[in-house]
């Protein structure tokens, strides 16, 4: 019963379906988009909603069971002394790490794009990405070996006659390790931004009488800035959400937001408070991304 089409080919089920889809563009779009959209809605969005709902519940102190009645007490509790200190510490560390990485990444990326030969560039690129191939934990543990009392750093300083820095298990150690771990995430976007600056801009700047420094500050840096902002999204948010480095490297006052969430889930079984606290980094990131958008970070991609 196959219908013969204009081309003389018999129309099978498949061709009929494809023809129908060709005629109705919206149907094509629905079919293509619905699996990822469904995934996004169910897995991604629904879990956030579930978290918000949980944050509005509480835990019965006697039975430790969830109490399914609405309360804002978890959110109110966040704004008490200790938690504000911890949020402030987390934010401060994320900011310092971001600035450190930006300062380190700019000259490095500039060298890669403007100075290095193509061969050296490839080599440097590999070196930047190389640490990402090793386990996060292995790298953190390597830093413990370097920084702890009796570690490589102390040993080196002592042999140079400079005394012992003794920075193992402290916030300084955390700053060094975070800056190291997230550096590639800053270098890559900055590299991308610098690479797209046409040589003609720099030549034009020179032709118009600007010296090297002036070209750098008036031409190169402004054009690299969106890349820096894009990289800062990574370094900032990754530091903000981390709890392993504070746990492994931190000193006696090194709790991060993540550590408090962890102890509320793992030890206290206080899911509602953990959920409420988990909104703090989300809100911070929303604010950060809004600012980043104004600074043109998303134009870098």
């Amino acid at each position, binding site marked *: 019963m196959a219908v013969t089409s204009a081309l003389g080919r018999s129309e099978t089920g498949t061709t009929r379906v494809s023809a129908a889809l060709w005629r109705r563009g919206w149907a094509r779009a629905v079919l293509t988009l619905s699996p990822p959209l469904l995934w996004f809605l169910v897995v991604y969005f629904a879990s956030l909603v579930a978290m918000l709902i949980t944050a509005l519940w509480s835990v019965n102190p006697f039975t430790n069971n969830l109490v399914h009645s609405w309360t804002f007490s978890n959110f109110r509790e966040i704004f008490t002394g200790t938690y504000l200190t911890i949020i402030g510490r987390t934010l401060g560390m994320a900011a310092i790490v971001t600035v450190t990485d930006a300062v380190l990444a700019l000259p490095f990326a500039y060298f890669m794009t403007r100075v290095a030969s193509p061969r050296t560039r490839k080599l440097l690129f590999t070196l930047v990405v190389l640490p990402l191939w090793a386990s996060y934990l292995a790298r953190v543990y390597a830093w413990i070996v370097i920084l702890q009392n009796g570690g490589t750093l102390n040993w080196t300083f002592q042999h140079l006659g400079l005394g012992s820095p003794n920075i193992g298990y402290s916030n300084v150690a955390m700053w060094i390790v975070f800056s190291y771990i997230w550096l590639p995430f800053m270098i890559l976007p900055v590299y991308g931004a610098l690479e797209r600056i046409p040589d003609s801009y720099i030549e034009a700047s020179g032709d118009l009488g600007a010296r090297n420094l002036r070209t750098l500050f008036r031409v190169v840096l402004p054009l690299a800035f969106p890349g820096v902002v894009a990289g800062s999204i990574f370094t900032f948010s990754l530091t903000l959400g981390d709890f392993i480095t504070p746990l*492994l490297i931190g000193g006696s006052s090194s709790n991060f937001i993540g550590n408090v969430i962890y102890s509320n889930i793992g*030890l206290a079984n206080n899911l509602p408070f953990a959920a409420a606290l988990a909104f703090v980094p989300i809100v911070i990131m929303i604010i950060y991304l809004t600012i980043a958008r104004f600074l043109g970070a998303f134009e870098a991609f």
Partner: protein
Amino acid sequence: MKSRRRLWRPASAGVAVIGVLLIAAYGSTVTAAATKGHASGGLVPPTAHYPVQKSIGKGEGKLNLIAWAGYAQPEWVKPFEKATGCQVNAVYPNTSSDMVSLMANGGGGQYDLVSASGDADLRLIYGGDVRPVNVGLIPDWKNFHAWLQSPGFNTINGVHYGVSLQFGPNVLLYSTKTFKTAPTSWSVIYSKKYAGKITVPNNPIQIADGALYLSKTNPSLGITDPYELTQKQFNATVALLKSEHPLIKKYWDLASQEISLFSSGAAVVGAAWPYQTNTLQASGYKVAETIPKEGATGWADTWMMATKAPHPNCAYMWIKWVSTPKVQAEQALSFGETPANKLACPIMNQLQKGGCAAYHANAAESYFATLKFWKTPLATCDNGKNDCVPFQDWVTAWTQITG
């Protein structure tokens, strides 16, 4: 393999043990309340009248365990499988809460035994997830330390809901270079003299250590049980621990951290498990441990049988097997804890020179009396009042202490 297994304890054990202790604490509190007919008066475990087996029948050929990592090692599982024909499958949860979840609905007809810690025991018992066991079928039970035969965390109204396995104290670890003689009091970890050289576990249950110290040094507070604190007692303890914060080098999360702190000299005194002491001493570091005059906290684990255990005969054979002196000794040395079976001591010495004393397996009963085993702090106190501070608040306070 061995070192890896041991390293686990620090990580998981921190959380797991705490959880377990918490559960245990919860357990013993409920138990005490139940036996005394106070706040939870008349609370009877749902499976209290469940009939117990009178003999061990033929093995079912399989055994499914929920165990702490390191509790089902090939050293003693392989010979067990060979002797009984019971094939052992084990899952290794990370926390006591995970253990309780896996045991939901009486083990779901899937699991037979769980190596629950004190902080999980009472939750399992009062949840009806475990059933009474006949200790008469475990010949080595009578060789256990008397206080581990029917402890409050697994035995209620004379009904045994499990058989004790192993335990360990939280000791005071110190550098013998700094301390020519052993410190006699926990006061050293609150002393400005050792500022910046002190380390304690990063764990809310550590508040109990502070409470135990205050129960002896400040009797006017009237602390009798470090896991049952009124708000006033609790506040005093938290104040003590806050004053300790500036003296702390690091709140350790992993036993390996404390080992590195002591081996590098960054810390000279702190709260520890015997595992750290033994590891440091084995590497030649000048450290020693002691249980100060105020006593110490500790943890204790129990094998408990699921209400819907599908392979009860194999389960009894397993408990019988792991209670024997040899397996007790092997597990104690492999994991770094103290066996429940007194006869394990000489075998520990055979396996590792001085192994028995290293893990206190030969200590006098008076030693055990100084240990306050972890249990979950509950709002219901032993005295029948509901004015004790629950564990949740412990976690909040601990966050404030460690800032």
